[in-house]
């Protein structure tokens, strides 16, 4: 039990440091980026495309980041100032489809059809996002 707690805390600390390497730069960068004019313009341009899942244009960055790294996406949410509903929708989309390249690699190693499965994930993710937007 004692040994387990020790190892658990150590593992947790290691994992947190790994997360910090991604989350700290992303959160910091987004907190600054979102004040820039060009960011606001891109957001404005993207907003009609994100509307169908009930998200503001700026959340497109979160979703895109999440496709590469879920933890980077977590870092971008606070600076963008999303509401509870928007955060929940983003979370549902990303928790269904995230870190596609690395997890696709795992599927490949498990000798599964990773292209089909990844396409299925992305499709389901936006479908689920639309349902949550409708229900919540």
């Amino acid at each position: 039990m004692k040994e387990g707690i020790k190892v658990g805390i150590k593992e947790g600390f290691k994992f947190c440091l790994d997360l910090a390497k991604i989350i700290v730069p992303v959160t910091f960068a987004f907190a600054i980026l979102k004040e820039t004019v060009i960011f606001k313009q891109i957001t404005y341009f993207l907003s009609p495309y994100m509307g169908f899942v009930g998200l503001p244009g700026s959340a497109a960055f979160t979703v895109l980041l999440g496709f590469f790294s879920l933890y980077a996406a977590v870092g971008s949410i606070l600076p963008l100032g999303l509401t509870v509903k928007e955060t929940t929708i983003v979370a549902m989309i990303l928790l269904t489809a995230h870190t596609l390249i690395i997890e696709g690699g795992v599927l490949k190693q498990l000798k599964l059809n990773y292209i089909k499965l990844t396409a299925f994930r992305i499709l389901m993710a936006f479908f689920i996002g639309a349902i949550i937007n409708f229900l919540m």
Partner: protein
Amino acid sequence: MDVPTVLMEAIYQTVKVMGLVFAIVIPLTTIFEILKRRKILDKISNRFSHAMKWFDLPGKAAFPILAGMFMGVVYGSGVLYKQKKEKMLSDRDFTIVCTILLMCHSLIEDTLLFVAVGASFLWIFGFRILFAVLFIKILLIVGKKMPKLDFFGKS
């Protein structure tokens, strides 16, 4: 906004999010480690073996599914590699297990990270399980009715 305000806000948000991450991750990994050492999951998964019939899976599929859903992705994928290597499940069953886990893994840790930045825990937790179960069931029914369209078949 002026530059110092933006910088202060950036620092504040970075510190806040990392504080939340530490507060969530460390207790979780500690609990996972204790559960692993006590082999709790092996005991619980026996109770879920009947539920596996609903997915046309053998009872022993309960262990990799529960491991992937609740114990984090590293441990979960470790269990999957082992299952694949030792051929514990048929190819089709293995594909079903992986598809369920692909849609719904690390239910606790990843969900809590999003809850930390403001999402609703109950909505995410409930709907992730619900959608994963529902979609897999639909794919299984379609596969049974129209074998040509079987999502889990050879392709």
